[in-house]
């Protein structure tokens, strides 16, 4: 057993980037640690790869770093040699040549370009093409599908085969961000509900967005793909090792771009299946809730929770918003207006219309796609009776269901 | 000593420069207008 571990370790250290190795020995991590910084684990290279793509990428990256380091050293060694030898102060008389003369000089002048051509299109090019083909092959032998929807500023995950669907948002408390309390170990890289995936299964990841372009990135998976509104993009992951993997949105997507992490729990398949069953049961219970009549207090409690998770980033926890981009809900004309028209239908540009269908050209998205009937009814009721708004009315999940 | 730039020579050069300048300006406008109608 011991020798086996040793072997794996040697195999891993063979992947270590020579530049990184040099830097690490020159600047041992402890020497760079600043007082007060909580984390000691940082890297001069990619984090440990856990998918075949990430391993291949790291391998290619290391190879390329080696190639360009050699090119850099050789070229500038020649230049520095010249700068030392051919100085005026050392009495060197300047030559007069302006180009290669004679076949031999032409040969030596052209050799570097032949080498570069070989490096570009053979040494680097061929493995790169293979990697691209591998990376883009999302469908062959795919075991399951995960649909990822980016929205300002959270991720929605959907498992089409089992119908499980939920939103995952930043779990780091605002007080940590504003430096009012100590930062936790996974500061900004923690979510309320991580996405769960089985290890050893090829997962085809479909990506889209409801508002602007986001980019789904988990460094240890070696994949990064844009989520584009109105279009479907895809990539794939096959996680080889159970664990918790963290990443972030990588495309500037507005105010809270830095605050929409991706967290993936990779678990063995049985555990995954059990999790899916639990999610289904939960969803069923929640769906049942849509048909019964809710009391106002129940709606307000549920609505507060939904508001803080989904709405507070823009409209602020106190409902004052950040005008003009994010209007205040407190005293809003849209909210302080009749709930529905006389026939119980949605009034255009009313509160219910805005929440369900969004407002084009703004960050206000159509939440009917991402929130359940209960959540929509609860949050609308909550907004109408909070932040100084005193409409006193409420809307039932069943009504929302019929309005969809 | 080399001759001075004559007024006539300079006027001829500047006229040629202006013609070419208008032509390049027209090219810019054409590219801009084509760009507006691009559909992928």
């Amino acid at each position: 057993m011991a020798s086996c571990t040793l072997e794996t370790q040697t195999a891993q250290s063979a992947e270590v980037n020579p530049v990184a190795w040099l830097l690490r020995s020159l600047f041992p991590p402890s020497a760079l640690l600043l007082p007060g910084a909580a984390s000691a684990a940082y890297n001069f290279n990619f984090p440990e790869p856990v998918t075949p793509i990430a391993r291949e990428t790291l391998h290619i990256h290391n190879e390329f770093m080696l190639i360009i380091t050699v090119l850099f050293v050789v070229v500038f060694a020649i230049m520095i040699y010249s700068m030392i030898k051919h100085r005026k102060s050392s009495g060197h008389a300047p030559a007069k040549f302006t180009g290669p003369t004679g076949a031999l000089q032409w040969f030596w002048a052209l050799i570097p370009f032949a080498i570069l051509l070989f490096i570009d299109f053979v040494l680097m090019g061929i493995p790169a093409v293979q990697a691209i083909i591998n990376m883009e092959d999302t469908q062959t032998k795919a075991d399951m599908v995960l649909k990822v929807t980016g929205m300002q500023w959270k991720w929605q995950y959907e498992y089409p085969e089992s119908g499980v669907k939920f939103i995952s948002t930043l779990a780091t408390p605002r007080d940590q961000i504003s430096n009012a309390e100590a930062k936790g170990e996974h500061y900004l890289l923690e979510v309320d509900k991580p996405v769960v995936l089985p290890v050893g299964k090829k997962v085809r990841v479909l990506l889209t967005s409801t508002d602007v372009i986001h980019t789904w990135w988990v460094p240890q998976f070696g994949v990064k793909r844009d989520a584009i509104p109105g279009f479907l993009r895809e990539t794939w992951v096959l996680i080889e090792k159970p664990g918790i993997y963290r990443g972030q949105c990588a495309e500037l997507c507005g105010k809270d771009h830095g605050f929409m992490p991706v967290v993936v729990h990779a678990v063995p398949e049985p555990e995954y299946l059990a999790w899916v069953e639990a999610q289904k049961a939960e969803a069923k219970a929640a769906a049942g809730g849509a048909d019964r009549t809710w009391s106002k207090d129940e709606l307000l409690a549920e609505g507060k929770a939904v508001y803080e998770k989904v709405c507070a980033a823009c409209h602020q926890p106190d409902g004052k918003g950040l005008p003009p981009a994010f209007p205040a809900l407190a005293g809003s004309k849209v909210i302080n207006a009749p709930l529905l028209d006389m026939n119980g239908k949605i009034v255009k540009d009313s509160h219910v219309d805005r929440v369900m269908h969004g407002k084009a050209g703004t960050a206000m998205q159509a939440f009917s796609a991402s929130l359940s009937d209960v959540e929509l009814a609860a949050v609308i009721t909550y907004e109408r009776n909070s932040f100084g708004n005193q409409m006193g009315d409420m809307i039932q999940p069943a009504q929302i269901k019929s309005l969809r | 000593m080399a001759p001075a730039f004559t007024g006539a020579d300079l006027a001829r050069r500047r006229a040629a420069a202006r013609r070419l300048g208008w032509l390049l300006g027209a090219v810019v406008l054409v590219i801009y207008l084509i760009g507006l109608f691009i559909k992928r």
Partner: protein
Amino acid sequence: MSTATTHTAEHPAGEYHGGLLRWLTTTNHKDIGTMYLTFSLIMFFVGGLMILAVRAELFQPGLQLMKPEFFNQLIGVHALVMIFAALMPAATGFANWMLPLMIGAPDMALPRLNNWGFWLLPPAAILLTLPFTLALFGIGDGALATGWTFYAPLSVQGGMGVDFAILAVHILGISSIMGSINIIVTIFNMRAPGMTMMKLPLFAWGWLITAFLLIATLPVLAGAVTMLLTDRHFGTHFFDAAGGGDPILFQHLFWFFGHPEVYILLLPVWGLMPHVLSTFSRKPTYGYKAQVYSFIAIGLLSVVVWAHHFFTAGMPVPALVYFMFSTMAISLPLAVLFFCWIATMWKGAMTFETPMLFAVGFIVLFGIAGLTGLILADVAADAQYHHSYFVVAHFHYALFAGGIMGVMTGVYYWLPKWTGHMYSEKLGKLHFWLTVVSFNLTFLPQFFLGLAGMPRRIPDYALQFAEFNAISTVGAFVLGISQLLFAWNIWCCVRGGPKVDGQVWEGAEGLEWELSSPPPHHSWEIQPVVK
């Protein structure tokens, strides 16, 4: 009309309007060059202050100084200011000052166009930064917050800062196109007798290619932002999938301009390098023709590689392979330039005055940009690098070490020619060493931040990125403060200093050194003899 065409030739030297009016109405290429360079220096500090605020925020994890919205505005406007208001005007300033001297012309071909081109810049710069001020008075929500790339639909959703930036970009574009047209027609029509195209100084060649690239690509950018404007206000759906549009179309149009833009910024500097290297090596330029053909090749290649800026947006495998290989192909003509630069130094008799130090520093650090660019072209590895700090480090090695240090090379090289005074060599060398060390302190750690997984354009970050960010911020502040030395050195040199003759540098060759320092009001009244 005929009076206008010979306007400058007919006014005797010294017949100036006084004060501000002189600068508003001047059509003299040297006055306009000076204005471009002064404007550029001022905007360099404006853009620098913006990014120092950003680096201060990033010194430690957590939000200390600003809200994320304001952070997003600073990074985008920093980029636009540095590219359009600092680097491009600096290169245009060089062209205005030096092209007529170098090619033996009395002035630029179209002097009034030249005046216009400059005076469009200050209003554009004001438009770009005005929303910051307006927000202070409660009007609007600040400047462009989408990054300099304007990606739709984020820019469709943004506040009025986007409209200001769209207008500013249009004006800056018109200014650049005017400058480019003037440079092309000057090079084509105003050369001294005997100055054939293959005897043209390499600086003029570099600028000629830049000017053609600007003319080919700026209208596309203008078109893209016009479409953005109509999407925002006039109900079109160019970039809105719900209306049959495509957000990725914007990226195609933007980068069709954006990639050549990199070479637009760099080609004038590449053209300048052989002059400096040859002067301080006291040896003729190596491979003149090879460099000219490389400029042309890079210019042509630059307009067919744009999509490597958004490999992660998803495209068919053949497109990925094509854009990867065409991008890698640029390394060949670029390697020719490196080869020629080093071969020009080889077996020379080198001295290391400040311009030469900056030139050598440029070659080494720009080498890092080129080599990391080569691996960024690889689609598979790019999936990790893209949108991360690795890219931020890469393009600052290209645009600060390549662009701005190249401009500094030119300033130190030509400042004695412009002013007739020698700058302080001691301050210049101090400025060089502080710049090089602090530049690397700032940006080398960002390569590792990117590899470790830190995305770009985030106002706050996870704890594992803390150390490198702290180092980078310290470096940035030293870098920023060091540039005050540069401004001080220029100021002192303009005011006075040891007098220099026309030749200035022992090893300098070319028509520009045959004129006095500073050159007479009308640069060449008699036709120079081209050797």
